[in-house]
């Protein structure tokens, strides 16, 4: 096919724009990575591109800091949060998807998802304070549940909507109760959805700063709070900060890519269809 000049020009401009966008996205990561392997003495020098790579910063963070403990906290908190969210969210999402009379409930889930943390943090803080649960993992998990549960439930509604109703009808005709049909037939059918919702919830919990900042102390501090602590900008600290940032970023990037395909359905909750 003959491509007109106008076509070729617009294609060229489009490709250029995409290329620029890619550079804008990748450059910060690249620079942070370079910073993390710079010898500490060269930290914070924007003019230096060539140097002997040094793993000193990585070594420092992994062996001589609290970051491993923070990672463990973050991981444990996110995992428990997700498990509780799935256990409570999946049956409810199924009910919302299948039974009449829950149209309002769907939207209250959405409303809960949109609830600003500002309104919940004050009472949660006071409650946990009275229960002496400040600086405990249980406290942070409670707080994280407030935003992970609605997201997970909303996510799953969309997946349940796509499972044909015939499937559980068949199971019930085959002699199972409705509940058995749900967990023996329907749940396995939405396994990818459960995984996607779980991973998304995990990433949300892992990334949270606001609640963790206010509810954790030395014992239960999560990774984002620890990163926020690298706030002195002395050259020596920069490399370590870069390492901590990378450690926080890499796992969620990998996890997120594994669920990219399912994200739309989840976030839109079957509402983003024309």
């Amino acid at each position, binding site marked *: 096919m003959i491509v007109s000049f106008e076509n070729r020009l617009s294609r060229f401009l489009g490709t250029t*724009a*995409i290329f620029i966008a*890619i550079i*804008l*996205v*990748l450059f*910060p990561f690249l620079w942070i990575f370079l910073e993390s392997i710079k010898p500490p003495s060269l930290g*914070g020098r*924007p*003019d230096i591109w060539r140097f002997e790579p040094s793993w000193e910063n990585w070594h420092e963070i992994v062996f001589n800091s609290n970051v491993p403990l923070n990672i463990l906290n973050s991981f444990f908190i996110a995992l428990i949060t997700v498990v*509780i969210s799935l256990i*409570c*969210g999946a*049956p*409810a999402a*199924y*009910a919302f998807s*299948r*039974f009449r*009379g*829950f149209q309002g*409930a769907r939207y209250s889930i959405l409303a*809960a998802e*949109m*609830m*600003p*943390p*500002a*309104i*919940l943090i*004050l*009472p949660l*803080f006071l*409650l946990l304070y009275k229960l002496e649960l400040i600086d405990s993992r249980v406290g942070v998990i*409670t707080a994280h*549940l*407030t935003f992970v*549960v609605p997201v997970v439930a909303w996510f799953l509604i969309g997946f349940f909507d796509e499972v044909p109703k015939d499937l559980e009808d068949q199971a019930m005709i085959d002699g199972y109760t409705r509940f058995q049909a749900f967990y023996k037939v329907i749940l396995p059918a939405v396994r990818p959805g459960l995984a996607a919702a779980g991973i998304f919830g995990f*990433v949300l919990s892992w*990334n949270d*700063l*606001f609640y963790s*900042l206010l509810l954790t102390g030395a014992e239960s501090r999560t990774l*984002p709070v620890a*990163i*926020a602590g690298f*706030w002195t900008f002395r050259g020596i600290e*920069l490399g370590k*900060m*870069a390492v901590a*940032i990378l450690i*926080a*970023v890499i796992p969620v990037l990998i996890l*997120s*890519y594994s669920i*990219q395909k399912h994200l739309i359905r989840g976030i*839109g909750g079957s509402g*983003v*269809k*024309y």
Partner: protein
Amino acid sequence: MHIKYKLILPLVFLLSGIMLYPFIFSLWLSLQDYRLTRINDVQFVGFENFGFIATDQSFLNAMGNTISFVASAVIIELIFGLSLALLIQKLLIFRGFVRSILLAPMFITPIAVGLMFRFLLNSEIGIIPFYLLRFGVSLDWFGPELALFSIVLIDVWQWTPFMLLMFLAGLEALPKTPFEAARVDGAGRWLTFSSITLPMLRPVIVVALIIRALDAFKVFEYVFAITRGGPGNSTETIMYYIYQTGFRFFRMGEAAAASILLIIFILVFVILIVYLSRPKVIK
């Protein structure tokens, strides 16, 4: 009891405990003079907190900052996201690869993004000002004039991918034949976009706009990581204001009142957007 109620029971219990109860607690809190420093001396003050907040210069300032932040960030993200989605959709090769890279920022811990840019844009050690200076451009990214704009830029960097994700899916879900019909009808690129693509995409745009705006109202991490509300109070957002009032000045009652005002504001905003974006009735 019908099985449908049994199925939602765990969720109802959980959400009542961790959301409904705190929410009601918050309402009660907003009517008290509740200070962490005098926790045994809590007094009912009626709407005094609301009166105080509504006339507090720094609350109004924070609200103003938040609104300009949300409006500019979301509009820029909408335009960038839509343009990129259209460009990527036309891409013949590497489409999945490009998409994967461009979506990356939205998954990252916001505090890490904040610190990353604080570092990249720092006027002494940041690489961006360093090279801009070589071209004779001297900008103080976190100075009084630019700080809020810089935070908008950071938000754009992290959240344009969200818009992109929504629009890519939206475009993919559009039926193909109207576009073929438009080609046969002789519509050019612009006419096709403005009278077919855009109207068909409207529901997705509205949803993306609402989700993103509600999220942007909660902006906290970048402010906390970079400016802590400064210089002066030029980047103090509503979330940061509530954080300060409640946890630095320990005035829980006033913080609760501010958060309730925020909710009311958000509610009005959502209703407004939905109302404004409804399909126009044809006379």
